[in-house]
C-alpha cells in the first residue's frame, strides 16, 4: 500500500512538471505573438494554455482529452492554433483534425446504440429501487454534460473518464494555485523593495 502511494505521488509530481512545462510554453507563445493584450485576453490565454497543456498530458489516450482538443481546434483563432502546435507539435495538431471525424463517428454509433436500447421494453413499476435508478440516471446526465466528450459515452466509460478527468483537474488546479501564490509573494517582495 505504501509503495503504491509513493508511486502515485511521484507520478503525480511528474505529471505536474509536464503540465507546468507545457503550460508555460503555451503562455510564452502567446506573449510572443500578441504584444498588446487586455486583461481578459490574458486571462483567456492563461486558461486556454492550461487546458491544452493538461489535456496533452494524456497523449490522446482518453476521450475527455481528445474532446478538449477537438473543442479547442473548433474555436481556433490564429494564436491558439500556434499555441496548440507549440505544445503538441505539428503532427499531433493534424491528429486533432482527424479525431474530429472519430468523434462524429462515435456520436453516430452512440445514437444507434441508444435506438436499440429503447426498443428493448421497459416496465413502469415505481418501486423504491426504480426511483433510485431514476435519480442515478438524472445525475449521470448532469455528469455527462460536465465531462468533455461525455455525451457519447456509456455509463462505464463515463465513470472511468471521470476518474481520469478529476485527477487531471486536480493537477491543473494544484500547479496553477502554487504559481499564483508564488507570484503573489514575488509581487509583494518587489513592492516592498521599491518602497525601501
Amino acid at each position, binding site marked *: 500500500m505504501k509503495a503504491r502511494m509513493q508511486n502515485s505521488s511521484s507520478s503525480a509530481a511528474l505529471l505536474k512538471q509536464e503540465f*507546468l512545462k507545457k503550460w*508555460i510554453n503555451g*503562455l*510564452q507563445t502567446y*506573449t510572443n505573438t500578441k504584444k498588446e493584450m487586455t*486583461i*481578459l485576453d*490574458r*486571462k*483567456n*490565454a*492563461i*486558461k486556454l494554455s*492550461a*487546458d491544452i497543456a493538461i489535456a496533452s498530458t494524456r497523449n490522446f489516450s482518453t476521450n475527455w482529452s481528445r474532446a478538449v482538443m477537438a473543442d479547442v481546434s473548433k474555436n481556433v483563432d490564429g494564436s491558439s492554433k500556434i499555441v496548440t502546435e507549440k505544445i503538441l507539435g505539428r503532427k499531433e495538431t493534424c491528429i486533432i483534425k482527424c479525431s474530429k471525424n472519430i468523434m462524429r463517428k462515435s456520436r453516430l454509433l452512440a445514437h444507434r446504440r441508444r435506438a*436499440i436500447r429503447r426498443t*428493448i421494453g421497459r416496465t413502469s413499476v415505481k418501486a423504491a429501487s426504480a426511483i*433510485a435508478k431514476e*435519480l*442515478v440516471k438524472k*445525475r*449521470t446526465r*448532469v*455528469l455527462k454534460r*460536465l*465531462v468533455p466528450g461525455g455525451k457519447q459515452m456509456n*455509463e*462505464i466509460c463515463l*465513470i*472511468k473518464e*471521470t*476518474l481520469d*478527468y*478529476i*485527477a487531471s*483537474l*486536480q493537477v*491543473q*488546479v494544484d500547479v*496553477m*494555485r*502554487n*504559481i*499564483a501564490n*508564488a*507570484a*503573489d*509573494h*514575488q*509581487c509583494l517582495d*518587489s513592492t516592498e523593495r521599491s518602497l525601501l
Partner: protein
Amino acid sequence: MSSRRSRSRQSSGASRISDDQIADLVSRLQQLIPEIRNRRSDKVSASKVLQETCNYIRSLHREVDDLSDRLSELLESTDSDSAQAAIIRSLLM
C-alpha cells in the same frame, strides 16, 4: 455470430456484470472526492457519489477560472518579462 451473442448478453446477464463494474468504479470515485472521503462512511449511495462528483468538478472548473483571473491580474501589474522570470525562478527553487 459473436454480435448476436453479445446482443443477447446485453439484455440479461450483462446487466449483472456491469452492475458490479459500476459499483467498483463508483467506489473509486468515492476515494477521489474529498467531500465523501473525509466523511468516513462506507455506505454512500451511487446517486450521492454522482452528485458530489458533479459538484466537485464544477468547483474545480470555477477554481481554474478564478486562478486564471488572478494570474492575469498579477501578470498585468508587473512588467511581463520580469514577472514570468520571477515566477519561473520561484518554481525551480
